């Protein structure tokens, strides 16, 4: 297929934007959108919520999920698991990229065991389980730094009570250098399944990690157009200065 640049377009599916939005989560959407637009790639952002149809969700080339407060998560979790979960699984199996921040590792795995021993079913897309240890383990709050398999760094801010343990079906997203990461024990941070990333970094993860934003965009184009489309480089000096400042201050 011959793809002309001005015909390239992607649809970003934004899961429950009103409910899965706790602290600057939409920064990720802004960054993906602008970095596409600056390269002449057309973007539509499609909110996926209670009223969305199966075809709405299937039309998405990239999926984003932010963090939800407990009450908000309670409002949406059944709809997400039952009406969207199986379709999302098929999409991610097909290679559709995704980014899930904040409490995502708890939502995407097999289950989440609450502090008082209640077992809540997750979406079961990622081979991992999460557990809250009640008051015996403190909440993980603070700036984080991780190292990717290719040696590049990621920076973020975590704020979670639960701990996540990965199974064999997923790879860790990064090795944690500063902060708690998945569980504060095995040195892993987040998880990656096919082209879908789950991270405990919350809120605006992509603004200071432009390489991850571009990886997601490149994968999205590759899956959608079934071929590699090189991305034009952008001037990211400001983003990298902000990234470096975190590395210097917190290592």
């Amino acid at each position, binding site marked *: 297929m011959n793809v002309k640049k001005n015909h390239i377009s992607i649809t970003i599916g934004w899961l429950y934007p*009103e*409910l899965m*939005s*706790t*602290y*600057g*989560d*939409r*920064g990720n959407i*802004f*960054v993906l959108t*602008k970095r596409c637009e600056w390269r002449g790639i057309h973007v539509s952002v499609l909110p996926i919520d209670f009223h969305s149809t199966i075809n709405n969700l299937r039309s998405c080339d990239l999926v984003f999920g932010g963090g939800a*407060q*407990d*009450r*908000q998560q*309670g*409002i949406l979790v059944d709809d997400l698991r039952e009406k969207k979960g199986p379709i999302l699984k098929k999409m991610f199996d097909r290679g559709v990229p995704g980014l899930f921040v904040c409490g995502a590792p708890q939502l995407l795995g097999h289950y989440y065991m609450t502090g008082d021993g209640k077992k809540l079913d997750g979406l079961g897309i990622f081979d991992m389980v999460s557990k809250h240890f009640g008051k015996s383990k403190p909440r993980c*709050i*603070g*700036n984080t730094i991780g190292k990717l398999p290719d040696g590049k760094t990621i920076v973020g*801010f975590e*704020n979670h009570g639960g701990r996540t343990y990965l199974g064999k079906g997923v790879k860790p997203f990064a090795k944690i250098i500063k902060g708690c990461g998945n569980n504060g024990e095995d040195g892993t941070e987040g998880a990656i399944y096919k082209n879908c990333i789950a991270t405990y970094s*919350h*809120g*605006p993860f992509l*603004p*200071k990690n432009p390489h991850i934003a571009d990886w997601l965009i490149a994968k999205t184009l590759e899956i959608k157009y079934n071929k590699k489309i090189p991305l034009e480089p952008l001037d990211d000096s*400001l*983003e990298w*200065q*902000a990234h470096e*400042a975190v590395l210097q201050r917190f290592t």
Partner: protein
Amino acid sequence: MNFRTKLAILLGKFVCFISTTFRFGAGATWPGEIALRIQPRILQILSENVKHIILVAGTNGKTTTVKMIETILAHQGWMVMHNASGANLDNGIMSAFLKKMKSTYYIFEVDEATLPNILKDLTPEIIVLTNLFRDQLDRYGEVDTIAEKWLVALSGLERQTTIIINADDPHLAFIGSKLAAKVKYFGLEDPSLFLPKMQHATDTIYCPNCGVRLTFAGVYFSHLGKWACGNCSFVPPKEDVTAKDFVSPLEGVYNTYNALAAALTAETLSISKSDIRNALTHFTPAFGRMETVVASGKRIKILLSKNPTGFNESLRTVESSPDKGPVLLVLNDRIPDGRDVSWIWDVDFEYYRNFSNYFVSGDRALDMAVRLKYAGIAAEIISDLTQAIYSLKENEVLWILPTYSAMLDVRKILTGRKIL
């Protein structure tokens, strides 16, 4: 009064005297801290003999509301004491008690997380709840967590306490509907102030009672507005005062809320409407809350902006003001600001690209510059705050929008003095 209590008061007063005399600080927290360590029950003991205690809690507007109430009460000739701005944990409240033990009226702003603990020690005559927005997630936790703790703490109060609640905040109205105490409401009731569309930074747009999406006939900002639930029996309360009754002495829609909260408090204390209106015209703003400072020929306007909703309202105020000039954003991530600066992505900078110039400074100036870049705004980074403030031309108006610790830094540079 036993020896331990007497000692606590004596030492607390001594620390207060030393720190203000030798200018180590303003004596806003340490005297109370010392007294509390010697006698942990001291707040309870001292407050037993005080008839009039007024607490003000909420995410935004605490300091200004307290200062407005104080202005109205002092105008009546009453003896009034309040805690220093931001010194709103138990040690700050205790320090204010120690500073002036013979006042008749004590007005305290109380930190959101501290309110339940304070209510264990004292029974106020009036509690004002201004609003609840996302703020310092790393410190306070989620909005709903605070609301739940408040509901539990306030449920213990009886008819001798009046709770004054912002009716336009659905979550606070929900708390009000569950209480045994007397509850009074204020709200704007002014459709001319509706925003053209809902902002992104909202927290309570699903019914706190049944969980279904609320409908809004209009919003004033964030989730404050004319709301309704189409599903359950939870209905908006009837307001006791609205924007038709009083005019705010300060610019900004949020200051209208502050003025209404203060006016309703004063009415509850049997002060007449005309006295309240008259007193409010004498109001001067608190430190950094729409405060104007003149320094080397420039007028500098400081608007504390420490969370998305407050920040959006600051930007709206700058835009609608006749004073045009550059805007300096100072973003810090110290403990009083919250270590997490994610919230800047919830601020709607996209609507304010037309300001003459943006400058950024503070610990997290780079984060702010990146945020502005994605809003289509090229900001100049000036790391040195003093330089940032003084690099402006004569006769220019400079708007400074700082976070909390940045506001203290800015004021120190401008006045050469710490306020806390």
